[in-house]
């Protein structure tokens, strides 16, 4: 789960991480009031969406599709600038390299006091899967894509790891600060900031904190000019406050609904719907469809606790996608019994008036009973015995090139 920059900075303030003064706004008049209250002549007007690349993004009018403005983050030098930029941002569609072509409507803005930048750094805290610990990564090349830095100038990236029980070591923090070329009060502030951010990472159960850029100002202060924070959803149970910072408009409506039903769904661009148990098998089913010339329309894992209700809902979600021309059901019964799935499939196809071709592959627990149920029903369902055969069959039925 991601949160907006303005929410992340609120969290930073709570943990004593230095940020510029700023105000969350939802309209042009909010933005002007914010400008007046900040008392800084130069401010940044920042679009708030969960995707990155905002600065280099382009804003479009969502109705006409016309380009409105280049750049989702603008520096305003006057009240008039603030008015113009916020009008161009608010309610318009921001397309960045991370949003994809469809872009995101900007409903939130952040107006932030400007600052005198001396140098831009990069700082991130994340989970290192290989070392099974929390990693702090920093670079002297701020404002750039970290992947790009990693490729072109890997020696500019410095890393330290936290001890799972002791946290960050003072000497590691000091050497990280040194390797960034910081000294005096800047170094002291950097070390404090590392400790504050690590405390926040642990206390708030973050999955990532990224600050790009982290700046040293002309007076030597270290300031988080940007803030990207991801939260580990597995820890939601101990953070009830997350309901309030969650922005549902940033998530796919259908993915939220699926999630509430215990399904895991991701929409893709193809035309063959998939309904599978298990995440790995669900991915493999998509892969095999593609291997035999088809295009999967979705990832869908019905999970180990699927019921008739959730399977019907899963069909419903697949069929809401207008691109879907056929469905492949692939179940390897373990806890889930194939006969239960078979009955759910029949019920769902009756209830939803299923018209597209349906191929079902059962294996594992009660697969024979399941197949018998499908074969004896009046609905035309193609039963197959392997994933390969199922993928070939559905591709063939919808007239693919295989």
């Amino acid at each position, binding site marked *: 789960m991601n949160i907006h920059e303005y929410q992340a900075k609120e969290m930073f303030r709570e943990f004593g991480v230095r940020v510029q003064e700023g105000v969350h706004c939802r309209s042009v008049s909010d933005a002007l009031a914010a400008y007046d209250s900040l008392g800084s002549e130069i401010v940044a007007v920042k679009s708030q969406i969960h995707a990155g690349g905002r600065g280099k993004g382009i804003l479009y009018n969502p109705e006409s599709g016309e380009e409105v403005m280049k750049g989702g983050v603008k520096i305003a030098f006057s009240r008039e600038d603030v008015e113009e930029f916020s009008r161009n941002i608010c309610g318009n569609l921001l397309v960045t390299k991370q949003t994809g072509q469809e872009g995101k409507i900007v409903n939130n803005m952040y107006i932030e006091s400007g600052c005198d930048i001396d140098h831009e750094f990069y700082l991130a805290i994340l989970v290192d899967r290989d070392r099974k610990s929390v990693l702090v990564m920093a670079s002297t090349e701020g404002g750039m894509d970290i992947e790009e830095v990693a490729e072109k100038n890997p020696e500019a990236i410095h890393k330290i790891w936290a001890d799972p029980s002791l946290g960050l070591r003072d000497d590691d923090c000091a050497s990280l600060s040194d390797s960034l070329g910081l000294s005096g009060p800047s170094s002291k502030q950097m070390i404090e900031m590392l400790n504050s951010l690590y405390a926040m990472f642990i206390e708030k159960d973050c999955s990532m904190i990224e600050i790009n850029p982290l700046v040293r100002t002309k007076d030597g202060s270290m300031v988080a000019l940007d803030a990207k924070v991801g939260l580990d959803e597995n820890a939601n149970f101990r953070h009830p406050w997350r309901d309030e910072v969650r922005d549902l408009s940033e998530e796919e409506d259908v993915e939220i609904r699926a999630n509430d039903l215990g399904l895991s769904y991701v929409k893709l661009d193809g035309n063959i719907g998939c309904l599978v148990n298990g995440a790995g098998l*669900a991915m493999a089913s998509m892969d095999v469809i593609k291997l035999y010339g088809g295009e999967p329309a979705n990832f869908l894992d019905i999970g180990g606790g699927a019921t008739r209700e959730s399977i019907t809902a899963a069909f419903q979600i697949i069929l809401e996608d207008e691109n879907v021309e056929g469905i492949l059901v692939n179940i390897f019964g373990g806890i889930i019994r194939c006969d239960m799935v078979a009955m759910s499939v029949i019920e769902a196809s009756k209830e939803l008036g299923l018209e597209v071709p349906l191929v079902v592959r059962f*294996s*594992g627990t009660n697969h024979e009973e399941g197949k018998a149920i499908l074969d004896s029903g009046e609905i035309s369902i193609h039963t197959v015995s392997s994933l390969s055969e199922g993928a070939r069959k559905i591709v063939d039925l919808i007239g693919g090139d295989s």
Partner: protein
Amino acid sequence: MAIWIDEESKILIQGITGRQGTFHGTRMVRYNTNVVGGVTPGKGGQEVDLDGCQVPVYNNMKEAVSETGADVSAIYVPARFAAAAIHEAAEAFNENGGGLIVCITEGIPTLDMIRAVDKVNEFEKVRLIGPNCPGIISPGLDGGCKVGIMPAFIHKKGRIGIVSKSGTLTYEAVAQTMSVDEGQTTCVGIGGDPVSGTGFIDCLSAFEEDPETVAVVMIGEIGGSAEEEAAEWVSENMSKPVIGFVAGSTAPPGKRMGHAGAIISGGKGTASEKFAAFEKAGIYVARDPSEIGQVLVGALIEAGLRES
């Protein structure tokens, strides 16, 4: 022989009186797994009926391990208590000669797992499998040892080792070995979380040392770089043939595909990188999991372990 568990293993179930614990405990006993007890705090002294077998319940792992001499624990407790259950099991096993912890639970916070794995690593003789995994099974001649939620009946004792990040895809791999008339020594589901205990290399190295295992099927998925590291290990250390598949060739970047760890981030962790690493390491690659059986047969023939 098999790796880590066999018919002699003595199993405890943490969370035995819960719905999941009782449900899967019953199926473990039905497969002739030697379940010697269980733990539910506050319910010590009771007994649980698992398929007609009366199993004692203890209040904590220390008591359970010292009373029963168990060397394996299966954790079926809810996510918010699971990390504490791992800590408890690790300490109890450490004081009693070591043991294997198999954590089935899904949805444990990552930071909890970092601390739990760190705890387990303190103890040389304690191993953790999972979390968020189907468990581990070593088929025997009459049933066998099943520590987890996999359907036991699809397995048969044999000579192939299986290791996988995914649950149902492990079953698919098992079915593939069966379709070419090969059984399994041990099947390990290592789970799809970003931070977990036993990894591919631990399993591969155990299979390499196991005299009964002649070949290994390894199933990976997108996210992280465990597959690449395993491939490198294989090319340097493995004498037995390895057959590999990676799920997620069609997964879009930046989207979590069901498993917490199954995500391509910053262009890293793609299936094509992993397949390429497999090929470079001389791993026999199946692009379609339904072909694992055939690829396995080819590998066995090449190694002189099968005629046709």
